[in-house]
């Protein structure tokens, strides 16, 4: 048991190392990671300023953009990576090795977080220095707690997506593309979901996405100066998401792997 855990941790670290090392060899990604998201956010910030929306709205955008960077990392740098690894033949090597698939995904995710954190920092810096968005944070630890819980829930969700990418490749790619915009919209990346004109049904739908609770919680703590007593519901919701999504992800990965083995599609390329 301990031996297997140590092996999985080694594998996760090695995969993380590949991502970081590979990223450093091609620094061009920095331009895309740092400049493009800031330009996207500027659009929203200026729009809110033009329509004379409360200044907190610009802050919402900054937090939304920061958290969106982590969701994009989960979806494209972790889940979709199984598709690329399959096409290049490396997935076969992973599946013949005595390691957990979750360890490899964890390595991919943590490796991707290095780049993502840079992107998130760029957005935060741009937000506070260039746009001077207001932030009132009384409990930074609560914000950090919600941030880490959100990340954990997102990664569990990403692992479930990875199981789809593992078997369905291109179809999963299209589905993920299809889901990206609705998830951005429903989670309220660029505007608050609650207390606005967003219809109730849409708000209800948005509660199925962990990012919604994470964003709402962090915004309340970092922008509105609220504390743990105000956001405890968000924390509970995120913990519930993690408790449900993690075992579900493990099940989905095992199920898809077995299905792939039965149908002979696990390592079949160019499907």
């Amino acid at each position: 048991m301990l031996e297997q855990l140590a092996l999985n941790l080694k594998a996760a670290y090695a995969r993380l190392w590949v991502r970081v090392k590979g990223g450093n060899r091609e620094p061009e990604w920095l331009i895309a990671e740092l400049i493009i998201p800031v330009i996207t956010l500027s659009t929203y910030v200026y729009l809110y300023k033009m329509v004379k929306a409360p200044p907190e709205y610009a802050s919402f955008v900054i937090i939304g953009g920061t958290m969106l960077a982590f969701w994009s990392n989960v979806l494209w740098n972790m889940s979709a990576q199984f598709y690329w690894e399959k096409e290049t033949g490396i997935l076969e090597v992973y599946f013949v090795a005595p390691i957990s698939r979750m360890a490899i995904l964890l390595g991919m995710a943590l490796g991707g977080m290095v780049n993502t954190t840079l992107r998130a920092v760029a957005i935060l810096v741009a937000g506070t220095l260039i746009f001077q968005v207001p932030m009132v944070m009384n409990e930074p630890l609560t914000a950090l707690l919600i941030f880490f819980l959100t990340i954990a829930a997102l990664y569990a969700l990403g692992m479930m997506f990875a199981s789809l990418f593992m078997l369905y490749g291109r179809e999963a790619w299209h589905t993920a593309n299809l889901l990206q915009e609705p998830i951005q919209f429903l989670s309220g990346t660029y505007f608050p979901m609650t207390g606005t004109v967003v219809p109730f049904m849409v708000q209800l739908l948005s509660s199925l996405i962990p990012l919604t609770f994470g964003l709402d919680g962090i915004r309340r703590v970092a922008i509105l100066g609220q504390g743990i007593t105000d956001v405890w519901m968000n924390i509970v919701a995120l913990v519930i998401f993690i408790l449900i999504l993690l075992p579900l992800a493990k099940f989905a990965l095992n199920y898809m792997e077995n299905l792939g083995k039965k149908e002979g599609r696990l390592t079949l390329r160019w499907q």
Partner: protein
Amino acid sequence: MIALDKVSISIEEGEIFGLLGPNGAGKTTLIKILSTLLLPTSGEAYVGGFNVAKEPNKVRRIISLVSGGETPGYGILSVEENLWFFSQLYGLSSSAAKEEIKRLAEDLDFKEYAKTRMSKLSTGYKQRLNFARGLLSNPRILFLDEPTLGLDVLTSKKLRGYIVDWAKRERKGTVLLTTHYMAEADEMCDRVAIIDRGKILVCDSPLRLKENLRANVIMKVEVSSVQADFGFMEKLVGVVGYSQTRSIQTDTTTLKVMVRDETVFSKIMSQLEEQKLKILSANKAEPTLEDVYISLVGRGLEEAEATTDA
């Protein structure tokens, strides 16, 4: 479609076992089942005493798989970085991995490329790296799926020699090799099984399989046209089987035919003369594993592959 039909083989520890057959015969399906990448629809398979379907992780701890024509790692990483990464999937300590990488780089002659990005390697060196990856974890059982596919003669020879040394002298490892290169199986394997359309046709040592053909006569005839028609041989009594290799460059066809006795051969010669084909050479040939295949299937490996591809 049935990929494998009632296949039953047993491989001894320390043996190099070859699975020979044309493309689409079921070789890769079998190796994928044994390396836990596929589940059989019926039947059971054991590797090192472990059931591949019920104890896959125990199987994975003792095996390694090297496939031909595969990308052996991440193009952006160097050869040694790739190998270090793969060593971690088997839990090697970094120092042990580095030692092992150094040794393999020397043994497989890619030391000078150790710091080169994988994407910049030639096909031959990529496959050396692939072999090194497969051997890094010191597997008890090594699966080689068409390992010399697309390689030049010298690299193929080097890798074949290395695996025989690894299995026989160094490690006493067990090797299951799938190939459609008959000479490769002949050179490397203690025993071979010939597989066609999912069925094992015969299983024995290459020497014994060839010895069994001694009762027949094998002739190699070269004729001066690429359009020679050998269809008449299907109806000739006494023809065990034949294969043909056509060369557009030289506008010749080489016919290899196995007959029950030499009188049948003279009938073939007269048929060829009737077609006004110029006979460039005609020699008696020693039996090879390809002839074993011809004697079992009635056609050569290339013809079998053409049938499968069609």
